[in-house]
């Protein structure tokens, strides 16, 4: 799986790396049990600071996307079966809220927002 970063972008690189990995999971290019490259080698391949990649991995770990196992490295987790815990739902909705509000303020209708979200999902899945 490819991961792509844009050094000139306003989005911090650790966020780009984090999103890149999560998009890989959505597309099915990374599945549960897959091992991510070591912090050092991914940082070397991208030519970025090791702390940057380390930060991405730790954020992914705190979100429960990966598990950092001593010696074997960062392993992709199995998505938890059953319902998503309400606390996670709450957090996602809080992060989504300002974007939805901004869309409404610039005059997008509810339907347009839903269409936009659907198109983003399609794009991420690469279909």
């Amino acid at each position, binding site marked *: 799986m490819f*991961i792509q970063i844009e050094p000139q972008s306003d989005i911090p690189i650790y966020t780009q790396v984090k999103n890149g990995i999560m998009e890989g999971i959505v597309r099915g290019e990374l599945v549960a049990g897959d091992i991510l490259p070591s912090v050092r080698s991914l940082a*070397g391949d991208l*030519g970025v600071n090791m702390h940057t990649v380390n930060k991405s991995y730790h954020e992914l770990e705190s979100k429960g996307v990966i598990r950092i196992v001593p010696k074997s490295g960062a392993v992709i987790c199995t998505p938890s079966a059953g319902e998503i815990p309400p606390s996670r739902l709450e957090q996602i909705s809080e992060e989504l809220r300002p974007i939805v509000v901004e869309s409404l303020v610039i005059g997008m209708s509810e339907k347009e927002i839903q269409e936009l979200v659907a198109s983003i999902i399609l794009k991420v899945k690469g279909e």
Partner: protein
Amino acid sequence: MEMTLLFVTVGFLMFLQITIPFIVKRTVVFGVTIPVDEIRNEQLLRYKKLYAILTFFISIAALALYFIWSKDISPTENHLILAGLLLPFVILFISMSLYFYFHMKVTSLKREKQWFKDRKQVKVSELNLRTKDEMLPWIVYVVPMVITAGLMVFTLANYNSLPDQIPTHWGPDGKPDAFTTKSYLSALILPFVLLVLNTMFLGINELTRNSGIKLSAGNINASRVRQLRLRKYTSWLLFFISILVSMLFTFLQFTTLYENSVSDLLIITIPLAFSALVLIGTVLMAIKVGKKDSDLDLEIIDEGTGEVINADDDQYWKGGLFYFNPEDPSIFVEKRFGVGWTLNFARPMGYLILVGPLLVIIIITLI
């Protein structure tokens, strides 16, 4: 004999300097990063041709001057040899001056045309690429060390048969020209130096392995093949040289022990054969790597939509030659001008691996 040797060296060097712009990776022209879609740019191709032609003719002129001077003025033997030794450096100086001249030209062309302005520059990495990495494992580098250990045991076992004067330096004819009195330390200097060299090769291999595999957006496939080849073949070359050095040093130690039973012919040919083999290995590596993702690569790049291009990393290359990037944990990176590796000068570890062994060798020889 000397003249043929000079011809071969200078000719080889000239050939190398002339071909370099065509065997370096396509997205770097005279040390300047260019976008993938400009690799067929007429002006850049003209610069490369001009560089090759100028290097060729100016070098030929230098060579001609040397011969006229050696024939007409009939200088003393010493002067002749000194000038002959200087000649390769003159060739290098000529090609490097031309390199800098064209480096400036390409830099200003790039600034003028603003190739990277308002374009999405990206860096790409493939997460499971390291499973395809074919560098030799560190354990094979222990093989030459075993040879070295054997040589130490052999030296100690035959200590009494060693001559009272141990050679410490060998002349161009392969014969020792400097000696020191026999002691356990002086008898073991050669194997010790050898061990340091073996360790250095092992260290370089491992540091190279930890270095990043740099892909170029827009020509991922070709750059991937090139990077993997560079890693694989330099690792093979290092191993090959490590074995060869062990064999050469073992031979030298033997000639010390059996001073008179080794024929003069062998004493001259073995070091020459060593140099020749190292040279051939290096050329093979350069061909293998240089064929891919360079001007010699006939594969046409048709990847992606052209929306994203390889990131411009010129700010990390001082003078287009020296890599200085404190962010990058890689200690070695692909050279900009030539085929092979160069140091990330922002990483002190690199200096250590290159200067450290030399210091150790100097200290050993001074004791």
